[in-house]
């Protein structure tokens, strides 16, 4: 695995993530990596850890099937001044470690009366589309919203993990990086043209909030979780080409706390605002974003939520498809809403 710090044009997202992990372990001997089946040659169920155990054998621990236990061990390493990274094999199993994440990692930052740094990054592959069934497909993000001192992030094709992961781990409190499993094999993108229509720029200096657009006057903005970006992108192309509706997409790397300031210039122009995520209905990330936007711009039209159905994730492909958000759901929702607001002739 190369570790040159350069982005090769054909890099896949899993390779970018792997490169980021290599750089972290390489640059700082306080960084540990723990998880199930993470040793070479396997390198973890999704191969994010490839090469790590060969290069850093004393700081890469392959664990027993003990999620509560090894997140606790990571907490102990952190308590002892180290900077552990933990891999949860499938996001659904992060629930086994809930106590260590909420009651220890997050709370111990402030519950002893004065702030105590707690460096910890938990990587958590999530999401469906692979037919693995209910215990291996959930988008678990919403269950971690609203915890003091627990930051939530999401992998996307647009964000450079080699730049962002070190910053997460440098924060004085724990974070979880959710990673949509279907992204791993896709090409790593970034600033500039991402296809014949859309361009990506970042709205902030830290390059945390990506903005994907055609030109500057959209009829709608989709705020997309990283994992739902590919569906939003496909929907945005279709909306433009088939419905003449220009939609821009904003992809925040940080899901929670949701930073609204960098969006201010956009929100004043776009009439319609949607939040798109793969998580299922009820207590969603989108609801949190909507609340933050409503607080900041009380007179804006309400934010609309696009998410998966109120359901477990079924196994069979055709049943799973019906539950999870698809590009056509986004196209249909946005085109129906906007045609109702502005009849089509208005745009011609």
């Amino acid at each position, binding site marked *: 695995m190369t570790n040159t710090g350069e982005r090769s044009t054909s890099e896949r997202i899993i390779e970018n993530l792997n490169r980021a992990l290599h750089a972290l372990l390489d640059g700082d001997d306080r960084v540990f990596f723990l998880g*199930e*089946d993470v*040793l070479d*040659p*396997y390198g973890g*169920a999704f191969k994010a850890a490839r090469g790590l155990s060969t290069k850093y054998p004393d700081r890469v621990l*392959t*664990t*027993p*099937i*003990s999620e*509560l*236990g090894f997140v606790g061990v990571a907490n102990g390493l952190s308590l002892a001044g180290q900077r552990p990274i933990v891999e949860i094999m499938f996001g*659904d*199993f992060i629930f*086994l470690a809930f106590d260590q994440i909420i009651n220890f990692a997050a709370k111990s930052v402030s519950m002893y009366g004065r702030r105590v740094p707690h460096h910890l990054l938990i990587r958590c592959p999530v999401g469906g589309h*692979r*037919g*693995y*069934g*209910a*215990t*291996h497909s959930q988008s678990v993000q919403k269950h971690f919203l609203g915890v003091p001192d627990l930051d939530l992030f999401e992998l996307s094709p647009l964000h450079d993990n080699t730049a962002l992961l070190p910053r997460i781990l440098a924060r004085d409190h724990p974070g979880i990086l959710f990673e949509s499993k279907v992204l791993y094999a896709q090409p790593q993108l970034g600033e500039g043209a991402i296809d014949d229509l859309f361009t990506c720029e970042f709205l902030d200096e830290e390059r945390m909030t990506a903005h994907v657009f055609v030109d500057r006057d959209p009829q709608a903005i989709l705020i997309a979780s990283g994992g739902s970006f590919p569906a939003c992108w496909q929907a945005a192309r279709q909306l433009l080409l088939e419905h003449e509706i220009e939609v821009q997409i904003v992809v925040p790397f940080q899901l929670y706390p949701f930073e609204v300031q960098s969006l201010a210039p956009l929100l004043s122009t776009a009439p319609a605002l949607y939040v798109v995520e793969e998580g299922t209905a009820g207590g969603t990330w989108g609801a949190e974003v909507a609340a933050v936007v409503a607080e900041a711009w009380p007179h804006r039209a309400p934010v609309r939520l696009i998410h998966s159905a109120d*359901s*477990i994730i*079924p*196994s*069979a*492909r*055709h*049943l799973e498809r019906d539950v999870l958000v698809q590009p056509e759901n986004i196209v249909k929702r946005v085109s129906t809403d906007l045609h109702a607001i502005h009849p089509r002739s208005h745009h011609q």
Partner: protein
Amino acid sequence: MIPPANLSHPVSSANASACPSRETLELLLLIRHFEETLLRLFQSGKIHGTTHTCLGQEYIPVAVMPLLRDDDFVFSNHRGHGHYLARFRDPEGLLAEIMGREGGTCDGVGGSQHLRRDRYISTGVQGESLPVAVGAALQLRRKKRGGLAVPFIGDGTWGQGAVYEALNMAALWNAPVVVIVENNGIAQTTVRSANMAGNIEGRARAFGVEYLRCTGHEAEALQARLAPELDRVRQSGAPLVVEFETRRLAAHSKGDDTRTPEEVAALRAIDWGADYQARWPEIFAEVDARMRDRMAAIVEEVESRALSSWSNR
């Protein structure tokens, strides 16, 4: 009073030489062909999702399931096709489930690792079922009809704290749980020496839970050895851990095998299938061909079915 058995003596079927009944051989080879068929269907892209085959371990459910009654609870895991087939002899329902076709056990919602039928339930979360088995067992005990709760787990699942919490409660409360451990020496890619300190016997005994080790792969001999032990649990309620030493012949799921071809070949050389074939070639060949044909016919029939619908949400 039933005299306590000398449980520390390992049970082995190695010396038994009786030819298995046709019925036993049929079930063993049905499971084998079912699993091999699944791997082929995956390779040809006809199945989507994941699967964990029990190739090499088929004889364990074949030994255990006939000892269970309809009112016993069975808790299966990710590697559960053999458990299901030995309990229900329903390859059509299971294949339809995995292929998302009409007539699947759970309408295609559950898939390979999430099956439920009568008192049989499986899940893909390791170790989760053990405390649940204790609860089910407590109610069985209250009913005083000798029912059992029987979870199947692998050696790797002993990493989960829930396993120990469950053993403790089962022993404290005399819950008739029989934990069947399929110790194939590997968990996904992690070999036992990398994830287990001590051993399963010591862990069970630490809670005062009875323990029985089973080696060998003759389903009927193992069944005969287990029968009185299960009866004892039915009467006393005292939980039992049964550890089978076994081997996983195929990849963890579809293609993710980190073992060398030599290691796998060594396991195949001591496989029950190879052994049975050498010892009882005629009946083996006859039943093997029949089960192969049967599976081929089942695939054809199930493939022609419509996609499942999820009506009972």
